[in-house]
């Protein structure tokens, strides 16, 4: 142990992997990240963006067709009143959770590696919540009545039922979106100032300047800014846990067999983080390659996220098995029948997809080789993305397709409108993300600079001597 500290720069005994590789200076960070916004986009950007715009058009057409015609164009029936619409809603809202987890919970727990990925993950949160918000709004059928969700009385002076989880959901999701926007924007202010200071042209300088609010990076400003950021992180942490808990209340507070369980809130939150991290990696692995950000989003970052996927995936697997156990152990014959139908009934193929993709495939991440081979990481993340969608489909459709009375049973198949609406939201999601890359700094520059070794007040440039090693004073201490 002792000989490790006798080197000339007095490195810590246990060396940590650096968060930014190749000892890049601060100006390199600025140039590389601002360059993405300031230079022309690579050809691949357009190759991806044009289909996304087309899919947005498809989404718009499907929504217009639905509103103009009625929900009969979907495959919903009685008893399956919640088909793909709510499946997609829960799927997208869950994806958003990883962004908030990275930005808020990892901030509070002082996980410095979050700085490379939090900005893009927060943007992903916003776009996922936008996609999610479409579905509850349109599934009400008469879209023009959607204002009934807002806390204002209707024409008869009747107010909303605030005891309903569906109304809690309205408040939870809208609060989540608003607070995520605030958190994201507050984080952006110093970086917008960087873009402003580099901009030469009029509109660009004016636009970034406007949103940078005249940020000057004075320590008297940083003091309040950091407190605001800390408080927003502290507020977002319980918020993100509450949102998916409230979403799960939509199911758990009902008496439908297969929904009526107390395990739902933690199980939904773990699943949301699980699916969200898979989506973060799905977006970030290609992005770091295309834009040359390998020194900022390092194998260590991907390794850490893969470990979180492994952890949350295993929690989800535990929840699946516990659900089965409780349905048997609880002795309720309706619950038993619901889970027999889920695992061995008409939709059992979906259950198999879910279990394989979410529980079995992520176990590959126990192996270091699999966490460091990007092709394997991408493949696993794609499985998780699909598996988490199947999880929501399994939970929603199998439970209500066959509930209490066999006479009321019916099966559900999506129509083309539902399928293309869902595909269209992917276009919206990726299109918004590409626009985000085009106009905003994808990586939080000010935070990256804060975790560089040079920003440590005790940092010494390589080659200088310390007191301990040589017993000499350092005379090039430039500060104060």
């Amino acid at each position, binding site marked *: 142990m002792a000989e490790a500290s006798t080197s000339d720069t007095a490195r810590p005994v246990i060396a940590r992997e650096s968060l930014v590789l190749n000892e890049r200076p601060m100006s390199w960070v600025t140039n590389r990240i601002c360059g993405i916004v300031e230079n022309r986009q690579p050809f691949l950007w357009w190759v991806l963006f044009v289909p996304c715009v087309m899919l947005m058009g498809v989404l718009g057409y499907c929504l217009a067709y639905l509103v103009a015609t009625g929900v009969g164009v979907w495959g919903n029936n009685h008893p399956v009143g919640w088909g793909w619409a709510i499946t997609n809603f829960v799927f997208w809202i869950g994806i958003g959770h990883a962004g908030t987890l990275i930005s808020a919970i990892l901030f509070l727990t002082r996980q410095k590696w979050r700085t490379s990925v939090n900005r893009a993950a927060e943007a992903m949160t916003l776009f996922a919540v936008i996609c999610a918000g479409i579905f509850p709004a349109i599934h009400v059928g008469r879209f023009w009545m959607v204002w009934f969700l807002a*806390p204002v009385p209707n024409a008869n*002076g009747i107010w909303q039922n*605030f005891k309903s989880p569906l*109304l809690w959901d309205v408040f939870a999701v809208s609060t989540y979106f608003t607070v995520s926007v605030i958190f994201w924007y*507050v984080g952006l202010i110093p970086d917008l100032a960087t873009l402003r200071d580099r901009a030469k042209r009029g509109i660009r300088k004016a636009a970034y300047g406007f949103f940078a*609010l*005249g940020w000057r990076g004075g320590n008297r400003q940083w003091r309040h800014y950091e407190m605001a950021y800390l408080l927003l992180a502290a507020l977002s942490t319980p918020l993100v846990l509450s949102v998916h808990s409230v979403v799960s209340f939509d199911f758990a507070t009902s008496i439908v067999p297969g929904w009526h369980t107390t395990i739902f809130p933690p199980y939904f939150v773990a699943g949301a983080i699980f699916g969200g991290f898979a989506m973060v990696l799905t977006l970030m692995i290609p992005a770091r390659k295309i834009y040359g950000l390998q020194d900022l989003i390092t194998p260590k970052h991907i390794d850490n996220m893969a470990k979180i996927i492994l952890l949350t995936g295993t929690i989800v697997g535990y929840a699946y098995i516990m659900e089965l156990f409780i349905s048997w152990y609880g002795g309720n014959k309706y619950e038993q029948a619901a889970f027999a139908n889920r695992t061995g009934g008409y939709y059992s193929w979906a259950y198999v997809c879910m279990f394989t993709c979410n529980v079995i495939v992520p176990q590959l991440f126990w192996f270091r080789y699999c966490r460091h081979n990007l092709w394997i990481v991408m493949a696993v993340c794609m499985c998780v993305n699909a598996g988490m969608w199947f999880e929501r489909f399994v939970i929603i459709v199998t439970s209500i397709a066959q509930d209490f009375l066999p006479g009321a049973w019916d099966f559900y198949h999506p129509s083309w409108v539902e399928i293309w609406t869902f595909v269209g939201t992917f276009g919206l999601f990726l299109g918004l993300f590409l626009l985000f890359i085009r106009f905003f700094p994808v990586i939080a520059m000010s935070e990256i600079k804060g975790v560089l070794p040079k920003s440590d007040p005790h940092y010494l440039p390589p080659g200088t001597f310390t007191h301990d090693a040589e017993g000499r004073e350092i005379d090039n201490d430039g500060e104060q």
Partner: protein
Amino acid sequence: MRDAGFKRWDVHSPFPIHGLDSAMGLSKSSLSWFVFIGGATGTLTAFLLQFITQVVIYPTYVQDKPASITTLPAFFPVMFELTVLFAAFTALFGSMILNRLPRWNHPLFVSEQFTRFSDDAFFLCIEARDPQFSKEETKALLKKMGGTNIELIEDEI
């Protein structure tokens, strides 16, 4: 700087420097108090919104649940959400007010080299409003402390 008795000065850096608050003699930000008050307002707003609409104005009976204070637990989720919402807005606008932002026309922006604060440069700014300020002595002091690129910025405030 602090020991020299200056009051109106600041350190501009591309990232927050931890430990500088105590070096500059600044106390903890008071923002948390505002946010606490904002959050409490949110809790109260949500409670009143739900209690008044469900119990007072239009007693709402759904699934035989009573329209009274006994259904308080069912009001908790919305109370929680509005607490977070109000507190977050207070954090945003509170920090803007405490930082005197937005302010797009600060004299510092006249300086060409100051734009590097957001890249990789560190600046120390002493305002002429400071009672200790004098053109020559302050410049000499900055020079003595090892400052480089010292510049006098003259502009209307």
